[in-house]
């Protein structure tokens, strides 16, 4: 029964993916700037014949609807075309960059959870305490501070001044890490390479924290307010009247209920995680999908932008599907 419902959700997301594809396609073509002009440079040393040849090679001479049709039919077959600039299949470029982005996003999520859960729970248990006031002020700052700004400050303090952590990149240049899954932490664990593991973990700290901080702030506030509500509920009084120790009352009876609204918010934050990563990857020169997309947009590399955005969209839909499944698991009153 549940499997059927999940399949239903997957099927519903297919038209959404088509919608995303069409919108991205149109937006790229509506933005001013012609890819071939940008590719050739503004010098104008190239002959008109060569330009025409390039245009027809990229199908840019065909009418818009034909271009769209070609893009969609190829995409369904798993072919996202060739990058105009790098002359490589888009799928290869994405496959190369995606692990870096996923590694960063998961680190950020981990940071967000590790920071927000203790703070959110304790602020509710000790409402109006010094800890509560202090951390809610911190959360307010975390929400209002732009990611790039926080990233630059952290680089200045922890990398440039204190030399505790690296300024940019995923791993030290001299780290000898054999190619593998592309997830550097996993690869160095699998090959037992201690130096590479430490190096890649160190590189993850600042960008991961920067990307996770805003989400941590939002989650801490949501968790605090839901915990305040569940801690006031009748079933918490019941738990106490059974002789439950207070940690069991808080962590089992109250938290388990407070997770229900919190998980919904985590789902919404996946979008922030994906969008934020373009900025953070640029600030920290993180060789991931986000930085590649930013570059591709400036170069009007239509296939690369389209392909990457499709990957973002799929990730977003998948993440929300997981959150929905988690939500029904947490809330027995809801069937998927």
């Amino acid at each position, binding site marked *: 029964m549940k499997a059927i419902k999940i399949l239903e959700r997957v099927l519903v997301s297919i038209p959404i993916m088509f919608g995303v594809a069409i919108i991205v396609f149109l937006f790229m073509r509506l933005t001013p700037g012609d890819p071939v002009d940008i590719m050739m440079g503004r010098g104008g040393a190239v002959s008109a014949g060569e330009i025409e040849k390039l245009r027809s090679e990229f199908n840019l001479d065909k009418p818009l609807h034909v271009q769209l049709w070609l893009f969609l039919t190829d995409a369904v077959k798993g072919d996202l075309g060739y990058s105009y600039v790098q002359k490589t299949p888009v799928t290869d470029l994405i496959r190369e960059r995606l692990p870096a982005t996923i590694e960063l996003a998961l680190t950020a999520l981990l940071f967000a959870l590790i920071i927000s859960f203790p703070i959110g729970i304790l602020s509710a248990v000790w409402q109006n305490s010094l800890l509560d006031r202090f951390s809610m002020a911190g959360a307010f700052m975390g929400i209002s501070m732009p990611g790039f700004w926080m990233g630059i400050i952290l680089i200045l303090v922890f990398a440039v001044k204190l030399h505790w952590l690296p300024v940019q990149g995923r791993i030290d240049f001299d780290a000898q890490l054999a190619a593998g899954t592309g997830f550097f932490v996993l690869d160095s664990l699998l090959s037992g390479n201690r130096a590479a593991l430490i190096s890649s973990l160190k590189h993850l700290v600042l960008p991961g924290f920067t990307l996770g901080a805003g989400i941590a702030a939002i989650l801490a506030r949501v968790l605090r307010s839901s915990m305040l509500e569940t801690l006031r509920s009748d079933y918490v*009084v019941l738990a106490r009247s059974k002789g439950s120790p207070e940690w069991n009352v808080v962590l089992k009876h109250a938290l388990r209920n407070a997770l229900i609204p919190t998980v919904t918010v985590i789902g919404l934050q996946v979008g922030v995680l994906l969008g934020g990563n373009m900025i953070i990857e640029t600030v920290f020169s993180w060789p991931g999908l986000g930085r590649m997309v930013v570059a591709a947009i400036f170069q009007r590399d239509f296939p690369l932008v389209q392909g990457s955005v499709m990957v973002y969209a799929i990730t977003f839909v998948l993440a929300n599907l997981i959150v929905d499944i988690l939500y029904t698991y947490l809330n027995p009153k809801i069937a998927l």
Partner: protein
Amino acid sequence: MENKQPLLEIRDLSVVYPSKRGEVRAIDSIFLNVEKGGRLGLVGESGCGKSTVLHAISRLISRPGKVTCGEILFKRKNLLKLSSREMRNVRGKEISMIFQDPQTTLNPVFHVGEQIRESLRLHNIIPGTHLPWPFDIARKRQEKERVLQAMREVGIPSPMDRYATYPHQFSGGMQQRALIALALVCEPSLLLADEPTTALDVTIQAQILNLMLKINQDHHTAIILVTHDLGVAAEFCDTITVMYAGRIVEQGPVDDVTMNPQHPYTQGLLACRPVISKIDQKVQPIPGNVPDVIDLPPGCAFAPRCPQVKPACLEGPIPIFQTGEKLFNRCLAQVSYERDPLWSWEHIVRQCDE
């Protein structure tokens, strides 16, 4: 009942909730006696402090409220002097509670059976050596057996199927039965029932009261039944305590209090209860409103609504008079009383701080 040993003795119990407008003296100088297997009714209008009495007994007064004075002797131990760990061993095992709204009282995200089993686990009811989770299968099976037995006893049909269902899949009456099973699974000697039937349909109310009566008789579990309905208390209890604005106004054996009420408030409560056998009888509600406990008059709190009020009632606090072996009444209507002009409620409270 047969053996009239005291189980619970409360003396001079007062609870205060500090608030922005001042101190709410939720209950003042409460005294109660419950014998083993006894059934005490705590009656009064909403806000008179009935729930506060129960919460004080199980030491669950919500912050910033606190017990300012008094003693709660349970099996000769003063509960107010126990450490929080010792008190946790009393809660659920020796003293259990059931609540007004079963729908919000069961935790919505856990199976009903598991919630009952948690009580057994918390108090280590199944004897023997125990392996830690996840090797506790044998213990779990024995606990589950006990839970099913309790569910059967409170009249939940096909408990096997009901064990692993969620609270929202139960009707209100079934939820309350499950909560009673939860309260009784560790075989406590005292059950605190806070308006257990108020949220239920009339027909279900009678079933739940009968169930509680059966448990009282089969297990000798003493019960304090809180209700705003003097009629329910009259049918169920052997002793009745009537409260008004946080204070006891009348206390005594059920027959004395219901057949021959002495306090005008108790008389009013009886008069406003319809009696089915007398169709044409007039129901007379007590005129006026429940007073605000934050701002009580210096004299009798019931004076603004009392048909027998006299000048002495307004001058200062009314002491409680013992009018029979176990009969108490806080009223000046039938007595002549020489007042000490310095004697005030504040005086009494100050005395208990010492």
